[in-house]
């Protein structure tokens, strides 16, 4: 068993090394960094400390948008790269179990997403820290000059620990999306089909809260049951948005167990979709 986990790690490591060399990843990373960097132009609008909130929302939106593209496209590319180049043939002819192969590929993609989200969050955090520092120092300067500046609003103070927790939740959400993509790839024949179907599922997961509201009014027990089943089948990605509430203090504090619940929820779906992908890949003829 330990040998199988060793294989998973080796496959993951190679997958990661292959992925960071891909032009797609580097292009997406540069684009995302440029987007976060462009928050600098919010200074033009004299929002005051509100600028921090705008910048944070802008950066987190960028991470969500590009992170989801990365999770889907990188997973599909790395999987079909192995199939089309027939490196999977060489690999699976060795004493490698199919679950080790799928788990290794997924872990490699997950590491890639971790680096992506971590790097972008660090850049966003550094930018917010710098801008916040400038506002605070301007307030001190005004105070020393004998002016009566308004207190720097507490609700505008960036909670950097919250930003880190949000990054962790986003990473988990994208890992679940990568596992969904891997499940689709495990039975589909083309990269394009996998990407299209996975994005469609991503949209369902992202907009599930709307469907929840619509389903609440269903009278028929059969339809209600079906709706409930579909609701359980696709994870509700809005649950991971709890992390965004941690970046700035809120009037109603986020419940203590909310983050742990979201993490547990994510891990459950991650394991579930990975197991389904393994099951489907087992019967695939290479």
């Amino acid at each position, binding site marked *: 068993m330990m040998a199988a986990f060793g*294989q998973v790690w080796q496959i993951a490591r190679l997958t990661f090394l*292959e992925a960071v060399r891909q032009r797609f990843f580097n292009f997406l990373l540069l684009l995302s960094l440029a987007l976060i960097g462009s928050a600098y132009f919010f200074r033009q609008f004299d929002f005051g400390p509100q600028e921090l909130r705008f910048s944070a929302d802008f950066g987190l939106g960028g991470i969500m948008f590009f992170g989801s593209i990365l999770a889907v496209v990188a997973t599909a590319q790395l999987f079909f790269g192995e199939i089309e180049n*027939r490196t999977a*043939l060489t690999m699976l002819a060795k004493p490698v179990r199919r679950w080790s192969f799928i788990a290794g590929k997924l872990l490699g993609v997950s590491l890639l997403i971790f680096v992506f989200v971590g790097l972008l969050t660090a850049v966003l955090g550094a930018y917010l820290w710098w801008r916040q520092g400038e506002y605070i120092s301007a307030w001190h300067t005004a105070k020393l000059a004998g002016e009566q500046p308004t207190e720097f609003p507490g609700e505008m103070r960036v909670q950097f620990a919250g930003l880190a927790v949000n990054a962790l939740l986003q990473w988990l959400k994208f890992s679940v999306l990568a596992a969904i993509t891997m499940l689709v790839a495990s039975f589909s024949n083309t990269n394009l089909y996998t990407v299209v179907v996975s994005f469609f599922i991503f949209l369902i997961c992202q907009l599930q809260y709307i469907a929840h509201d619509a389903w609440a009014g269903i009278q028929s027990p059969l339809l209600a049951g079906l709706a409930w089943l579909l609701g359980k089948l696709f994870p509700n990605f809005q649950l991971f948005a709890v992390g965004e509430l941690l970046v700035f203090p809120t009037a109603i504090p986020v419940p203590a167990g909310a983050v742990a619940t979201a993490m547990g929820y994510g891990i459950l779906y991650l394991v579930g979709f990975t197991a389904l992908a393994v099951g489907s890949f087992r019967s695939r003829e290479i």
Partner: protein
Amino acid sequence: MSTPAIRIQHLTKDFRLGLRGIKLRAVDDLSFEVADNQVFGLLGPNGSGKSTTMKVILGLLEPTQGECEIFGLRSDSVQARRLVGYLPESPYFYRFLSGRELVAYYAGICGVPKVGRAKRVAEVLDLVGLSAAADRRVGTYSKGMLQRVGLAQAVVHDPRLVILDEPTAGVDPIGAIAITELILELKRRGKTVLLCSHLLAQVEDVCDHLVILNQGKLVAEGAVSELLRREGVSNLAVENFTPAMRAEVEAVLARHGARLRQAEPARVALDDLFLEKIGPGDGKKKGAP
């Protein structure tokens, strides 16, 4: 009697095509055995079921009917695959790794212990003549070098059975001869080699035993020496054979009820002529393209 390296019994493999699931029979009731420490040829035209048979042996495809065993173990078990090394046709490897890193990676995957892994990798790279190019990126390798690094990854875990799918496809004659020598070296080291090749001359040179498939069925099987023997006909190679001598020989043969069927100037094989003119080339042996 020792356990055969490969035992295939009544193997049938069907593929379902299209939405209507039309059945295509790729292999039809195939049975044969490969004895240990043999070089065994698997021949047949395109679409004859060679690749499907090989994939079943490698545990990559599940048979529709029948069984396949490797040294007595089910071929789809991980234990069986520990005993097998495989070189695919026109292999493609991770281009960003060096030859050494690539072979070390597969060694790790196959469970070669960390202690001594680097030594083992160096040994197999030397065996395939890639030591000098071991630290170059695989992306810069020629086709012949790719085949050789493919061979290195196939044997790095010291398997008992080595399966080679078109090992000389696209390789120049010098590279092909080097690979042929490697196959014979593997046999000397006690390995069993299953060779799938369209180069019939190569198969004739190295294989002890072969099977020929056509449309998924076995059409010939046996020792190469037996299959290629022409009953009642012998070849003589004579130096300075003049027309007068030929007349005398024909007369003697006629007295014994035999007949001279053919006498023509001996020819050198094209491979030999090529080698004579080009030379084996030290650079090739040491990993040049």
